Every structure is written in C-alpha cells, then in structure tokens.
C-alpha cells in the first residue's frame, strides 16, 4: 500500500470531490472534506519521512518517458506535506465568510476546495510537463470560483480579474511547454533535462524558458504581474484566503524551481540566460514595494496580501542567487512563510467572525477583549518580520547566509532594510489592537471562545511557527538534504 503514496496524496482529495457532490449532504460534505485533506496530509507526511531517495511512480504502468510519471523528491514531499497540512487547517473553517446563497449548496464549495487541493498536490508530485499544466488548470479554475464566493460584491471582480490574469499565465505556461516539447521531443522531466543540452543554443529554447518563467511569474505574483493577488486574497472567504495565502504562490514557486533545476538545468538558466540578473532587481522591487504598500492598507487582509507580495520577493531573491544555499533558503522561507501567513489569515478570519469586518478602525482596542487572538497576531507578525525565536528568523538567517556566501553584503543589508518595513506594518496593527480605545459606538462583541472553530487552527499554527523557530534543526536539516538532492551540486 505504501508504494501508492504519491498518487494517493492527489487521488484522495480528487475523488472525494465528486463523492461530496454525489452524496449531497450538507453536514457530511464538510466532514468528508476535512477527512480527505487529513488523509492526504498523512500520506504526504509518511512519504516525506520514510523516503530515502526520490520516489518514482509510473502511472498506467508505462515506462516513465512513455507514460506519465509521478516523481517525488525530498523537496516535493516537503512542499506536499506543507500544502496538505495547511489545507486541513483551512478547511476546518468551513464556509465562514461566504455569500448567503451558498447556504443550501455547501457541498459544491467543498468539492471546489477539494479539487483545488488536489490540483496543487498534483502539480507538486507530477514529473511530466503537460501534466503540470493540467493540474495547474484544475487548481486555478477552482480557485477563481472559490474567490468569487466572498461576502462582498468586490469578490466577483477580484475573481474575474484573477481569471483573466491566471488564464493568460496558464496559457503562457502551455506555450512554454509546447516549445520545450518541440525542441526535446519528450515531456518527462528527466528526459527533457537530458535532451536540453543539444538544443541549448537554439533561440526557441530561450523563448520556451521565457514563456514558462513569465507564465509561472504571473501565477507566482512576481512584482509587475501581481495585480490579481490583493483583491483575491482579501475578498475570498476565510477558508479560501487562508489556504491560498499559505500554498498557492508557494506551489507555483516550487514549480518555477523545478522548471529551472529539473527541466532546463541550473547551468543553462543562470549562465547562458543570466536569469539571476533578471530576477534579482524584480525581487528587490517586490520586497520594497510590497511591504511599503502594505503599510497604507485600510483593511487587515489587504495588508497581509500586500505583505505576501513582499515575501514572494524574498523567495524569488533566494532563487535568483543560483546557488544551492540560495535554494535551501528559498525552500526554508517557503515553509516558514506558508505557516506564518496562514496563521495570520486564520487570525484575521477569527477577528472578522467576531467583529464583522476586518477594517483596521473596527479592530481598535481588541487587545484587551481578545487577548489570545491578539497575542497570536503579535507572534505571527514577529515571525513575518523574522525576529529570532520564530520560524521566520530561521529562513531569514538562511537567506542572509546564502546572500553573504554569494559575496554580496549590500544585498544582505537590503533584505534587512525591507524587513524593517515589515516591522512598521506589523506594529501598526499591534498599535491599533492594543493601544487604541475600543470604538465607542461599536456593536457588542461576542466572547472570544464563542467560536472555537475559527481560532483553534490559528493557535496551533502560531505555536508551530514559534516552536520551529527555536527547535529549528527539524526543518533546516530536511530542507538541506532536499536542496542538495534537487540541486545535485550543479553549481
């Protein structure tokens, strides 16, 4: 049974979606959905912990290059474990924050959510270029709909804008895959990387990589192509915004790493194409612009969305170094940011559940009223800044080491300067929470513990982020082996 783990991770959520629609029972669909995510998470964790080398699972029984092969290496298992765990946390919020007319039809909401999870998990484990596009489309399509389920009418426009940009991104990826197939004649990752050597000098190969990079860049919300992210994350229902914040951009980032490392090869991408020199300025701009605009946002979730754009800047910066240490830092930051940002969005959801709106002026003075939630936000915020003792610090430290090893100390200073901006917007919220008198004419506030479901997952994730901050050898060793196996000492 255990050799079927790679496909089970994807199959369980994917098949429980039609099951939920078939059963059409409102309460049962939520239980099935949570169970499916939990099972997928268990499969991912067992695979991650017990695998000694990269696992290959030939679908349909065909030889890898002929049929489609699921290829899970350490990094893939790491990302899959994170995605499925965060999905389990997010789904437990259920249909909070969705529109009224979803009431009779929760089963479709859960089906779309499960398909989104299956899509993302599929993207992480598959080793075939076109299969990546198919799972990309599954997850994107369900994401557009889930975002449109938000309470306000602005969710609809956010979803449609996301659809246009997302589909353009997907189609760019499709063009990239097509050109890559034309140049190498095969779609399997290992086969492509073997054949890419002969066609490295051809212009079509350069253009293929360019389209793949731009397509994934749109899905990754790299700076100039990020317009869809703030609206989508701030208008989506709670479960969806928490899930997306933690996983969507992270899986696309992992896919960009796979394209750079497994498909095209690091030597080609960084030496002939000088992709690093192109990606570095973009990520610096993203880091500063994202955090800067986060400072001036009126509502909590928009603030967190813009901070996500800033954090994506760190991810792409790590990749642009083109060294194994950079990759290690990128993967670590991927995990750290996933945990932290999901915790923060869950807390924002808990606030909205109590206060009805996440505009900052509505949250003033909640520190006294909801001490635990506010403390959770403070710890999450600290992890976002990268204060020692939180998992954010571990990944920022790895990034600093990678940058210094790359011989660019001025870059290290820029990283720290941009995390100063994070200090500003986190403590802006802290000030609103703790040091402002509550609104005189605010409606009466429900007791904090009234709504278990919304803050227990948040609390757990905050504890994880602080715990991993101190006992950091668990993630960093695993990620180091993942980066080493992925990188194979190419540079």
């Amino acid at each position, binding site marked *: 049974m255990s050799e079927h783990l790679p496909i089970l991770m994807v*199959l369980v959520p994917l098949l429980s979606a039609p099951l939920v629609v*078939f059963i059409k029972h409102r309460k049962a669909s939520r239980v099935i959905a949570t169970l499916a995510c939990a099972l997928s998470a268990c499969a991912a964790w067992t695979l991650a912990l017990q695998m000694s080398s990269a696992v290959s699972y030939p679908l349909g029984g065909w030889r890898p290059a002929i049929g489609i092969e699921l290829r899970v290496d350490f990094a893939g298992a790491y990302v899959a474990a994170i995605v499925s765990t965060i999905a389990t946390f997010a789904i437990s919020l259920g249909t909070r924050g969705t529109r009224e007319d979803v009431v009779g*039809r929760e089963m479709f909401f859960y089906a*779309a959510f499960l398909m989104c999870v299956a899509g993302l998990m599929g993207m992480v484990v598959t080793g075939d270029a076109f*299969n990546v596009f198919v799972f990309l489309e599954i997850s994107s399509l369900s994401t557009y*709909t889930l975002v449109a389920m938000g309470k306000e009418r602005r969710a609809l426009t956010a979803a449609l804008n996301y659809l246009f940009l997302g589909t353009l991104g997907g189609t760019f990826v499709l063009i990239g895959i097509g050109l890559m197939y034309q140049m*190498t*004649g095969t779609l399997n990752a290992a086969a492509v990387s073997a054949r890419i050597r002969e066609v490295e000098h051809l212009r079509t190969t350069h253009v293929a990589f360019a389209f793949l990079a731009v397509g994934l860049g749109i899905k990754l919300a790299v700076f100039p192509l990020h317009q869809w992210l703030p609206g989508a994350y701030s208008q989506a229902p709670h479960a969806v915004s928490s899930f997306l914040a933690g996983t969507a951009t992270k899986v696309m980032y992992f896919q960009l790493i796979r394209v750079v490392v497994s498909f095209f090869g690091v030597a080609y991408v960084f030496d002939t194409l000088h992709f690093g020199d192109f990606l570095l300025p973009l990520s610096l701009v993203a880091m500063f612009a994202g955090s800067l605009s986060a400072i001036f946002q009126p509502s909590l979730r928009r603030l967190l969305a813009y901070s996500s754009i800033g954090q994506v800047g760190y991810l792409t910066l790590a990749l642009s170094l083109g060294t194994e240490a950079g990759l290690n830092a990128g993967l670590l930051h991927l995990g750290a940011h996933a945990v932290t940002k999901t915790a923060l969005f869950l807390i924002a959801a808990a606030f909205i559940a109590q206060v*009805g709106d996440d505009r900052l002026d509505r949250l003033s003075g909640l520190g006294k009223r909801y001490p635990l939630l506010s403390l959770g936000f403070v710890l999450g915020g600290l992890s976002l800044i990268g204060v020692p003792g939180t998992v954010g610090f571990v990944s920022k430290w790895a990034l600093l080491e990678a940058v210094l090893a790359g011989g660019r100390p001025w870059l290290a200073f820029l990283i720290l300067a941009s995390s100063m901006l994070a200090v500003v917007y986190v403590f802006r919220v802290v000030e609103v929470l703790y040091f402002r008198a509550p609104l005189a004419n605010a409606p009466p506030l429900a007791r904090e513990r009234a709504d278990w479901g919304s803050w227990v997952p948040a609390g757990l994730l905050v504890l994880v982020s602080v715990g991993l901050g101190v006992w950091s050898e668990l993630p960093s060793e695993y990620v180091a082996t993942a980066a080493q196996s992925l990188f194979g000492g190419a540079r």
Partner: protein
Amino acid sequence: METAITVVLFVLLLATAIILGRQRNLFAASMLTGIFSLVSAGLFTVMEAVDVAFTEAAVGAGISTVLMLATLSLTEDVEAREKKISWPALAVVVLTGGALIYGTLDMPNFGDPHAVVHGEIARYYIDRSWDEIGLPNMVTSILASYRGSDTFGELGVVFVAGTSVLLLLGGRRSELPASGESPGHERPSSRPPGKRHAHVREMPVVRTVAKVMLPYIVLFAFYVQAHGDFGPGGGFQAGVILATAFILFGLVFGPQELVRHVPPERLERIMAVGLMIYGGVGVVAMLLGGQFLAYGVFTPSHPSHGHHYGIFMVELGVGITVSAVMIIIYATFATRRPSLAPQVVLDAEDRCETEVSADDVPLVPEERALRSGADLLAEGAAGTDAASEVPS
C-alpha cells in the same frame, strides 16, 4: 494544394479575428467566435489533426457560442463604447508576439518529418501502440492509456467547471411555472415589451423538425462514443454532442421543459458519477496490483484486452460527465432569472454616470438584498451605512 487551402483558411481566420475585435454588437461577435472555431476546425482537418478538429467543431462552434448567447441574454448585448487603441496593450502584444516570432527562427521547417519532435515518444507510439494496445486510433490509445492521468485531470477540469457554474449561478433559478405550461413568455425577458422575439416555441415547423432530428443526434452521440477506438471520436466529443441534443431540446421547448425532463439535482449526481467511474477504474487497477490506471492488470494473460476494457470504461466515464456538465451549464444559464438591475453607464468624461433603466419591472425581493450598484452609491452619497456595515 494543401498550402493553398491553408493560406485561404488563415486569411479567413485573420479576417474573422480582426472583425471580432472591432465588432461592437456582441451577438455578432459571438457568431464570429463560432465562425472562428469552425474555420480553425477546418484548418485542423487540413493538418490531419482529425480528433482535434472534431472536438474543436463540437465544443468551439457548438457549446461556447450557445453559452455566449445565453450570457448575452442576461447582460447587455452592445459593447459600451468604442475605446480607442490602447497603447500599453499594443506594446505587450507586440513584445509577446516578437518573442514568439524570435522563437520560431530556429524551429524546424513546417511539416519536416525528421524534426526532433517526431523522434522520441511519437516514434514509440506510432510503432508500438498497435501491439501494446491494439486500437486503430492512436490518439485514443495515447489519450486514455499512455497519458491516462492527463485525461483524468482534464475530466477534473470539466467537473470543476460544472461545480463552479452551479456555485455561481445555481442560486436563483426561476420558479417552474404553475401546472399548465403556458406557451407564452414565462421568463420575463429583459428586453423592452416592443422588442421581444416571437418565441421559438410558437414556430410549429421548428418544433416538429426538432422532434424528428433529436433521436438522430443522440444516436450519433452514442456512435461517436463507441467509434472512438477506430476513428476520430471518444468520450469528450460524444458527451458534447449528447449535450447539444439536450440543449436543442431546451432551446426549442424552453428551459423549463428541459429542467422538468432532466432535473438538475439528478444531473449533478450524474456529473459526479462519471468522474468516479474514471477514478474507480484507476483504483481497481491499483487493487489488482498494478499502478493507478494500469489497465494491463485487468487481463494479465494478454494485456491489450485489458486496455480495451479500460479505455472503453474510461471513455464512458468521460462521456457521462462531460454531457452532464454541459447540460447543467446551459440549464443554469438559461433558467437564471435576469436581475433587471438598471444598467449603469459612465458618460464620456468618466465622471458622473447616468442610469439607463431597462424597464420598470419591480425588483424581486432577493435583488433588494443584492443592492445593485446604483442604489448603493445613492446610499453611500447620503452618508447612511454603506456596504461596510455588513450584518455581523
């Protein structure tokens, strides 16, 4: 000869695309989209891609045009105003196009048999797929067996599309008319009284011919489903054609009639059943010791038979889900009661906006809750609690 036809088709396609861009009347534009798909299906046939041509014709020309027309009946059918050429868009387009053209410079000649792309896996499929799977139509054998997971994912996409449309538009179905189905206009059309079409239902000629043609379309759909192994066809095309038959029924006899005969609740279940059949076949293969979707294990003695059964079952699952989804999507669009919210139009200077009210049909209570744009702004200006006061 072939290049001559290709040139003509490309010119036709380009003309259609350009006119589509400039056309302000959206009904005409949707027709042009249908023409574009049909001509591209022609081009695919010329390029010997028969399966793709069949699907493109069925899906592109058939379903997407019908959906666009259904949408236009619920929204405006004329584009607001002719926007001048937007230079940033042109810049992006020229840049992307330039990159692609730059990419084509090193491509092998069009149709060159010794190109790399025909080497690797294509050579394997052409040489070995008859022995390993034994289906004349290579595309179906690759589609369903070699790259079975792709099609499984694709079916997932179709399922998500169905679920999404149900989630988005399933909310407000117009109530089924009382017992006696008056052939008149149950659906208050959003058009001013004078401009209402004579509904298709009063056209006896169309009703009788439709009654005659429907069985043949359904029969053809089943033919395409079964014929997938031998010629162009398969689950997708069959599902779409079956759906077209039901859509024709819905168009001619009215969406209420369609919903009465094919209730959406049952359709939603059928939609899920198809995907579960496909997944089920894969899981059975796993239980019998092979990998997911390894049909060979069904009949260990000679695996190609296993593949036949596997592919047939899988194609059946695909056909079921695709037909159910396409019907559901059409039914949801057709039975969605238009909200009759007055159309908000920005005047030339983008500042104040004038409201062109479609007609004076009173808003239905639920629409009050949805608060169309105009009322909201009026309230906002008046300073009372605007949208932000969401009932917590």
